[in-house]
């Protein structure tokens, strides 16, 4: 929760470019808007909404006192989606991408399915034809951002701290650090986790779930929410098929049971199998 104002917005994530030191004033993200509606006795009149940028060092509990408050309890209808704030920010992100013809792909998977390797290969083979930008999401470390930096494309790392997923607000802050060009591709590599990221719309154009043949073929059945909310499923590391007990047909059947519209690409980022299909899929979703 936001320690400053108790508004319930997590603000404990950090955003930095590779090589950048973590300094409090630069990277602690606390630029969300606070909407306050005060009653003032003095003649200083506010518009209903204004932004506050709080400094973290200050400890200032907001005790708002109101002149008139109802003396008896009453039922107040709220009827709002719990994720409404996230979804609103996601739609802002989406509008930003659409306005610039940017395709934004949210890559989700369990840890170790090969997302970063797929990205490296994609960048090496495609970045000459089309500008690519990357947002890396991990609980901790700059490792993935450092790997992507070596390919030469702009990358920013979000560290979620205790958080188990990226949310739209983090992405909104991260895209302010990247100077995204028109017609580019933005890859967001989400935190490796097949549960939590499923619920959080980031504003992406499409969601891509990656599983690998070293995982069980019943992953889609075990984590149906992620597969149900994705547009494309990449089954990666197919070069290892001769050595593992993984039934591709069954995996595809499980995946389509959770989501009949799910497109599937068999891939080996190592040997290059399926990469062409992946590039065609990206282009067709422009």
């Amino acid at each position, binding site marked *: *929760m936001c320690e400053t104002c108790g*508004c319930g917005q997590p603000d404990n994530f950090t955003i930095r470019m590779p090589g950048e030191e973590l300094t409090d004033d630069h990277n602690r993200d606390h630029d969300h808007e606070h909407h306050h*509606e005060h009653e003032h006795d003095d003649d200083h009149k506010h518009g209903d909404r204004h932004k506050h940028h709080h400094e973290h060092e200050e400890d200032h509990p907001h005790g708002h006192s109101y002149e008139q408050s109802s003396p008896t*309890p009453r039922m107040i209808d709220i009827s709002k989606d719990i994720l409404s704030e*996230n979804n609103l920010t996601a739609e802002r992100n989406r509008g930003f991408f659409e306005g610039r013809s940017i395709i934004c792909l949210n890559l989700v998977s369990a840890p170790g399915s090969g997302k970063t390797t797929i990205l490296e290969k994609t960048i090496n083979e495609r970045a000459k034809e089309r500008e690519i930008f990357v947002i890396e999401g991990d609980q901790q470390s700059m490792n993935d951002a450092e790997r992507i930096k070596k390919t030469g494309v702009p990358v920013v790392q979000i560290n979620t701290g205790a958080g*188990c997923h990226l949310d739209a607000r983090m992405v909104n802050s991260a895209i302010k650090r990247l100077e995204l060009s028109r017609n580019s591709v933005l890859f967001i590599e989400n935190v490796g986790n097949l549960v939590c990221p499923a619920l*959080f719309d980031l504003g992406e154009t499409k969601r891509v779930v990656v599983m690998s043949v070293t995982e069980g073929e019943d992953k889609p059945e075990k984590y149906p929410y992620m597969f149900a909310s994705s547009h494309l499923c990449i089954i990666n590391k197919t070069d290892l098929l001769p050595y593992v007990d993984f039934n591709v047909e069954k995996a595809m059947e499980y995946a389509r049971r959770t989501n*009949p519209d799910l497109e599937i690409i068999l891939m080996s980022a190592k040997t290059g199998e399926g990469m062409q299909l992946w590039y065609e899929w990206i282009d067709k979703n422009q």
Partner: protein
Amino acid sequence: MHELSLALEVLGLVTSEAAKNRVKVIHEIQIEIGKISGVESDVFQAALEISARNSILDNARIIIINSPGKGRCMSCSEEFDMEDLLALCPNCQHQPSEITGGRELKVLSMMAE
């Protein structure tokens, strides 16, 4: 633990609704969590109770309403209750079904003064 993130979202939402409605004390809050929303009600409730400490929701009664999962078979159009996201149609055993209810995550109302 996305339940904790959701609990913090609820706290933010309720804090701003309380200010909007000029209430200082919340006695009770009603929240709808669909049975096939992907959120564990018990975990969510515990997360909200912890998050509520020293906030406007401290001491408020948290009432969670679990709306049932509802589906319509994509093959025979049978409408039925879904225990989970991958429930089979009881009529023709087809899978998957179109989900028509049970994915709600909503703050419904609060009793406050």
